C-alpha cells in the first residue's frame, strides 16, 4: 500500500480571509473558475491540461456537482470526486488526487474550496437554514435530530468543549498551556500579511481573560469565522518538473472516519488521527524527527493539543508540558501552523482547512516569506472533520 511520491502540489491560489467581505458576492461556480485560473497561473500550467477535479457541495446545485463545474469551466476530466468530510475534505482530496495521478488516471487535478459569499436569491425560500444546527442534521429520521439536538448538543463549541473536559478529567487541564497554543500561533500570524490577525498580538492572559464560551473553552481559543477561498493544483511528475516552483511532493497519507457525534465515540480521547498519522508516516517512510513543521487543523486549541499527541510527536497525555517546553511559532523549535493557524489566519469555511495544506506546501516550496521555516523540507499536515472523528494526515516533501 502506498504512494511513490510522484504527485506534487505545484500551484496555489488563496484569497486573504476577511471578517466582512470587501468585495461583492460571487456565485460558487464563478469562484471555482477564478480560483482555478489563479492556481494554474501560479503553477504555470495551461487550463487545457486539467484532467481532474475534486470538489464539495456548491450553492448552485445539490447534486451532479462535478459535471456542473466541468461544464462551466469547459473542462473534460477523467477524475471527478466529491468529498464530504467537513474540515478534513481538502486534505482528503489531496491524497485522492495523488492516488489518481499515480494510477495514471489523470495528470493535473484542481482542488478548490470556494468560501466567498454567494448572491442571495431575489425570493429566498422561507424556513430555517439547513446550517441552523451546525453539522448536526435536523432532517426527519436523523439520529441527531431525535437524540442530540433536543438537548442542545449541536454545532461545534459544545462537542469540542466536551472533549476538552474529558481530556482534563483524564490528564489534568493546564489552561495556560492550551492558551499558549493560540499565543504562539498568533506570533506567526503577526508575520503573515494575509492573516486576519496580522497586526493583533495576544498574551496568555488575554486568552484566559476572554469570555468562556463553553467550559473550559475561551473565546480566543476558537477560530474566527471569515470569508475567503483557496485552490491548489496537484500534478504528476513530468508536469511538476516544468512548473514554476519547487514541487511539494505528496509522499504519505492516512484517513480514518469514525462517528459523527462525540456522545457515540468508542473512546473520546482516542482520536481517528492515531491510525491515520501512523499510516502517513509508514507510507512516506519518514520518522516524526524528520518533520520540519506541522500544519494541523486548529478549530480550537484542544484540537492542536490532541493532534500533537495523536500524531505521535509526544506521548498521549503529555501534550501540555510539551507545549510549554516548545516554541510553536515559525521561528521556534517546533513550528506549528506557521501561517497563524486558522486561529490566527481566520477560518474561511472550507478554505480554512485548505490553509493548512497551502501553508505546508508554501513552506516546502520555500515561499513562506516573513514566516518561512529555514530549510523546510518535510511538512506534516492534518485535516479534521466533525468532532475529531474524521481525520486525514498528509506528508509533503521537497526534492
Amino acid at each position, binding site marked *: 500500500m502506498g504512494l511513490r511520491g510522484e504527485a506534487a502540489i505545484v500551484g496555489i491560489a488563496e484569497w486573504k480571509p476577511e471578517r466582512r467581505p470587501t468585495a461583492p458576492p460571487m456565485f460558487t461556480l464563478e469562484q471555482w473558475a477564478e480560483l482555478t485560473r489563479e492556481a494554474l497561473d501560479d503553477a504555470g500550467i495551461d487550463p487545457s491540461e486539467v484532467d481532474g477535479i475534486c470538489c464539495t457541495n456548491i450553492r448552485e446545485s445539490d447534486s451532479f456537482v462535478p459535471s456542473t463545474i466541468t461544464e462551466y469551466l469547459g473542462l473534460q476530466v477523467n477524475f471527478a470526486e466529491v468529498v464530504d468530510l467537513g474540515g478534513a475534505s481538502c486534505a482528503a482530496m489531496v491524497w485522492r488526487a495523488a492516488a489518481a495521478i499515480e494510477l495514471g488516471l489523470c495528470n493535473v487535478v484542481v482542488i478548490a474550496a470556494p468560501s466567498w459569499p454567494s448572491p442571495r436569491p431575489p425570493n429566498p425560500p422561507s424556513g*430555517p437554514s439547513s446550517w*441552523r*444546527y*451546525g453539522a448536526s442534521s*435536523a432532517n*426527519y*429520521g436523523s*439520529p441527531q*435530530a*431525535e*437524540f*442530540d*439536538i*433536543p*438537548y*442542545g*448538543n*449541536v*454545532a461545534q*463549541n*459544545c462537542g469540542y*468543549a*466536551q*472533549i*476538552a*473536559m*474529558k481530556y482534563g*478529567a483524564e490528564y489534568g487541564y493546564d489552561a495556560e498551556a492550551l492558551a499558549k497554543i493560540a499565543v504562539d500561533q498568533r506570533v506567526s500570524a503577526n508575520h503573515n500579511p494575509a492573516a486576519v490577525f496580522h497586526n493583533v498580538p495576544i498574551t496568555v492572559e488575554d486568552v484566559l481573560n476572554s*469570555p*468562556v*464560551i*463553553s*467550559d*473550559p*473553552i475561551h473565546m480566543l481559543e476558537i477560530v474566527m469565522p471569515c470569508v475567503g477561498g483557496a485552490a491548489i493544483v496537484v500534478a504528476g511528475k513530468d508536469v511538476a518538473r516544468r512548473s514554476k516552483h519547487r514541487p511539494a511532493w505528496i509522499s504519505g497519507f492516512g484517513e480514518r472516519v469514525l462517528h459523527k*457525534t*462525540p*456522545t*457515540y465515540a468508542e473512546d*473520546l480521547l482516542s482520536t481517528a488521527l492515531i491510525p491515520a498519522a501512523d499510516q502517513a508516516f509508514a507510507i512516506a517512510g519518514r520518522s516524526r524527527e524528520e518533520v520540519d513543521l506541522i500544519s494541523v487543523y486548529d478549530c480550537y486549541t484542544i484540537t492542536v493539543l490532541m493532534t500533537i499527541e495523536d500524531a505521535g510527536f509526544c506521548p498521549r497525555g503529555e501534550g501540555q508540558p510539551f507545549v510549554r517546553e516548545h516554541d510553536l511559532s515559525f521561528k521556534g523549535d517546533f513550528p506549528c501552523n506557521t501561517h497563524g493557524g486558522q486561529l490566527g489566519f481566520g477560518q474561511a469555511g472550507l478554505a480554512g482547512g485548505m490553509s493548512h495544506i497551502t501553508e505546508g506546501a508554501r513552506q516546502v516550496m520555500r515561499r513562506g516569506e516573513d514566516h518561512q521555516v529555514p530549510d523546510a523540507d518535510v511538512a506534516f499536515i492534518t485535516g479534521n472533520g466533525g468532532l475529531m472523528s474524521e481525520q486525514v494526515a498528509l506528508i509533503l516533501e521537497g526534492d
Partner: protein
Amino acid sequence: MATDELRPPLPTPIDRTQPFWNALREHTVKIQYSPSSDQWVFYPRSHAPLTLQTDLEWREISGEGTLYTYTIARRPTAPDFAGEQPQIIAVVELDEGPRLTSTLVNVAEDQISVGMRVRPWFEDVPGTETTLLRYEPAT
C-alpha cells in the same frame, strides 16, 4: 410567531424509536439489546452496530449511569436555546454501556464532576406528548 420558532426543538420519533419515547412518557427507560452479541444499543437502530444482526429487542433498564463528560454552554448552542443558559450538556454512560446525550438538572455547577453517578429526571414537556430524559445527581 418568532417566540414559537425559538423554542428548543423537540424530537420527532420514527416507528423504530417510538418504544423509547413511549417508555419515557411512563417515566421508565427502555433501550435495545442484541442477544446474539450480548450487546446493549443506543440510540435505537434497525441493526446492531458492528454485527449488523437484526435481533434487537427492547428491555427496560434503570437509566442510571455515570457522567462521561459535559460542558456548560455560556452562549446558546443554537438560536432556539436562547434563554436556557447555562445549558449543562452532558454525555451519560449508562450502566449497561451505551452513552447518550442529555442535560444535567438540579445540580450546582461546582458539584459537577466527570465520573459522578447520575440518575434519570423525566421532563414532561408542557403541552406536548414528549418526555425528555434529563439527568440529576444520584445521591
